[in-house]
């Protein structure tokens, strides 16, 4: 048994917690150990002095008000934080609702929306795609972009034209550079390189299809609206072969 064990026994004896067996073991060790003898003799005086100091204590500390005040402060600050967060959330919600209701959503959504039109005058189907410009740039632009226009003649119109013009349609002459630049954003012509008889036309990038046959005296829509229009074009959709 090393001396640490006897120190623990001495501590138990000093604190009055030692069992009979522990007291006997310490009593057997103490006569042979000067340090343990002096510990056993002097320590009880110190322990009594500490207990006397505890009994003589007149200090009456009061921390209840401070602690409870701190707890209430903590609760009220938590409440304030919660209310503040709730207020901010409500304010943000109101702002978002007002913004969405006032058309902000349209501004955002318009940037991704494409409108399209399809019209037919009996001889050709016209598709027109329009990508609206952003609203803030609208004032700077004179008109919405209308370049994405595809003109696709009806099959019946093409046949009619072919019947009237058996010689076919010659490829369009090359355009001057300036005019080609103006058409730079045209959509690809689906009929490019193919004449109306189905024969390939070398080097033709655009096939100019005149869906409405040339007709002297054909009235324009404006003239028809004025009432003094001459006889309509003899090739009407109803006359086209089915």
């Amino acid at each position, binding site marked *: 048994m090393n001396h*640490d*064990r006897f*120190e*623990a*026994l*001495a*501590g*138990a004896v*000093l*604190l009055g*917690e030692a069992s009979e067996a522990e007291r006997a073991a310490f009593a057997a060790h103490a006569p042979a150990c000067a*340090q343990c003898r*002096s*510990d056993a003799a*002097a*320590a009880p005086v*110190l*322990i009594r*002095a*500490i*207990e006397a*100091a*505890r009994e*003589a*204590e*007149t*200090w*009456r*500390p*009061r*921390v*209840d008000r*401070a*602690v*409870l005040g*701190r*707890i*209430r402060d*903590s*609760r009220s600050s938590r409440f304030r934080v919660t209310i503040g967060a709730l207020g901010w959330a409500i304010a943000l919600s109101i702002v978002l609702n007002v913004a969405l209701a006032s058309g902000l959503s349209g501004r955002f959504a318009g940037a991704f929306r494409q409108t399209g039109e399809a019209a037919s005058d009996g001889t050709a189907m016209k598709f027109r795609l329009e990508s609206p410009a952003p609203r803030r740039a609208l004032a700077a632009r004179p008109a919405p972009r209308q370049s994405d226009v595809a003109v696709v003649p009806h099959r019946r119109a093409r046949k009619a034209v072919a019947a009237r013009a058996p010689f076919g349609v010659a490829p369009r002459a090359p355009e001057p550079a300036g005019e080609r630049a103006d058409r730079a954003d045209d959509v690809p012509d689906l009929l490019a390189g193919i004449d109306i008889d189905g024969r390939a036309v070398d080097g033709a990038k655009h096939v100019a299809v005149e869906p409405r046959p040339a007709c002297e005296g054909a009235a324009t829509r404006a003239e028809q609206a004025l009432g003094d229009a001459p006889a309509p074009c003899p090739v009407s959709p109803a006359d086209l072969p089915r």
Partner: protein
Amino acid sequence: MDNVYVLGLDRTLDAEARVEALVTQHEAKLARYVRRFVSDGDFALDIVQDVFFAAYRTLRADPSRPLTAGWLYKTATNFAISHLRKKKRRGETLPLDENAGAFRSDESSALQLDLQRALRELGEEQLACVLLTTYAGYSSGEAALILGTSADAVRQRVCRAMRAMRKSLGEATA
């Protein structure tokens, strides 16, 4: 002596009411223990406030948790040790005669002041063992539970602390 394991508090109360009951039961005893530990009444009051506020936060987080008196003393001991280490790092250890006005009022004898000085010279672990067993009135087994060690270790530290205090007091009286 208080039950070191579970305080007899009504768990149907909310955290604030339970802490209020804790404060009423333990504030004076705990504050005196901490004052002996740090040798400074003002710091002791601050530490005790921190301990009870920590108890409140613990009860608020887990109302079903059984709070023990041992938990209070363990928390107070940890806060006091932390405080002493901070002071030691900053070199703020004032002589007991300058900051122990509260001790002078009720411990007018030179022996009591010497005793407090001898306690201050103990190491943190020995001081905690001595104060828990001889001042707060816990047994070595309960002190061991509070400090997270064995009862034999507590008894051994008490024995060594007494030896060191006797040496310190012998030098003071010589």
